Every structure is written in C-alpha cells, then in structure tokens.
C-alpha cells in the first residue's frame, strides 16, 4: 500500500519534470526520439521510457513548443528531429525559473522541519 502511494507520488512529480528535462535536452541541440530516450535512460530516476517520452513529444509539438523536420538516417527509416520554437524557448526559460523557485521553497520547508 505504501509502495503504491510512493509510486503514485513519484509518477506525479516526474510528470512535470520530464517536460522540463526534454525541453532542456532539445534546447541544447536539435535531436530525435531515439537519442532523447537514450539520453534519459542514463538517469533512471526519471523513469522515462519510450511509452512516456514519445507521447509527450507529440503533445509539446501540438502545443507549439517544438517543431519537427525529417532527416535521412543510416539506420533506414528517416529520423524526426525536434527543435525548440520561439514559444518553446520562452516556455523553457519560464519553467527553469519556476523550478529554481520551487526547489528553494521546498528546501526551506524541509530544513524548517528539521529545525523544529
């Protein structure tokens, strides 16, 4: 029961953070799905598998934060490269600010608990 609650909590926390991580990755350089999934698999704490990353990429694109373009690949079928749009770059900047503020706030509240 506690494991289930912990998993639910983790899933909720990761949900929003994954968006921030993906936007950051794409902001560094234009990249494609397989590369994004491989990069994210190096941080298993995010638990970002194919089944979460790809649908999220489509949503970010539909929201106008990402643009796509097809490019040839040696592997056979073409790759779909993602890039931040102007709106995407602004959104990422805002999220980073929010994230820093949240981390600070959480740290203060956790430390406060320790003191008392």
């Amino acid at each position, binding site marked *: 029961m506690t494991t289930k609650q912990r998993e639910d909590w983790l899933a909720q926390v990761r949900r929003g953070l994954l968006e921030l991580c993906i936007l950051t990755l794409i902001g560094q350089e234009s990249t*494609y*799905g*397989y590369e994004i*999934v491989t990069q994210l698999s190096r941080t298993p704490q995010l638990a970002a*598998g*194919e*089944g*979460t990353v*790809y*649908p*999220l990429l*489509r*949503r970010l694109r*539909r*929201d106008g934060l990402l643009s*796509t373009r*097809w490019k040839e*690949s*040696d*592997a*056979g*079928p*073409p*790759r*779909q490269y993602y890039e931040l749009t102007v709106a995407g770059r602004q959104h990422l900047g805002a999220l980073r600010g929010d994230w820093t503020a949240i981390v600070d706030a959480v740290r203060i509240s956790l430390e406060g608990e320790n003191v008392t």
Partner: protein
Amino acid sequence: MSYQSNPAIDRYLTTLSRELADMAEPERTEVVGEIRNHAAEAVRAGEEPAAIIERFGDPRQLAGAYKMELAVKSSRGPLRRVARFFAMLGLAAITSLMSFIVIVVLGAFTLAFTLGGVASIVGGILSLVLPGDIIMSALPIPQTISELLAIGFGVLMVIGGLVSGVLLFFYVRMVARAFRHTVGSLRSGRR
C-alpha cells in the same frame, strides 16, 4: 549497413497504426514513422527486436498514452462522442437486418446441405454395397450409375454446406470486429 525490416517489429507497427485509428492524418503516419525509426536505430545499436518491442510496451497501451497525452488539449471530445454514437447506431441498424437474412440463409444452407449430402453419400454407398436396391432411380438409367450419382451429388452438397459454414463464420467474425472497433473508439473517446 542496409536496413532490413523485422517481421515482429512490422507487426507491432501495424497494430499500433490500427490502434491509433482515431488520430488524424498526417499525425498518425508521423507517429508510426517515428516509432519505426526508433526501432531501426535500436536494431542498428545491436538491440534484440523482442527487447525493443517489450520496451515500447503493449501497442494498445502506447496508443492509449498518445491519446491521453493529446486529449489534454482536445476540445472536440463531446462532439466526437456523439458522432461515434451515431456511427454505432448506424452499424447496428444495418448489420442487424443483414445479419438476420445472412445468418438464417447461410445457417440453413450449412445444415441442410451438409446433412443432406451425408445422407445421400451414405445411401448411395449402402445401395451399392448391400444386396437389393435402397435407391429407387426415377430416371431411365442403370441402377449402379444412379447410385454413383447419389454419392457424387452428396459430395457436392457437403462441399456446398461447408462453404456456407465457412462464409457464415467469416461474416460473424467481420461483424464482431466492426462492433468491437466502434465500441472501442466509443470508450476511448470518453476519456
């Protein structure tokens, strides 16, 4: 290194594409193309097709994840649901009338032809083997020929009966699939 498609991966992509039937083009093609590229890149990196497919997860679940993620911003949900409902209603109206005729006719054919054919074959053989004539020929032809004719027609009837049976089976399966598909999209549209 040239790209070779893998049957298991192709099958996965076909199922995924079918499960994404609700998604508008060209998005659906792009989504499937993106997953196809991922599989190819992973194969090239030396991964086993079975392991790649396992990480994608059940195609129905993956399609569901797309729908859930994209439904967040979809405003035409309720209208679509109404449209689906009428599609279902139409399907039910058409197929129920058709099914009544098709099932009754094909069912009767299957039963009558198979049983009649078997009876004719058995009768013909018995009449041929046993002493005395079981089959009374109404035609001015020799007894043996009319017995052979009975066996021959019997075989044709059984074949006819079995063909009707197979047709009936395919019809029922087709209708069941059409219903499952429409009901399925009705359900997923409700999210």
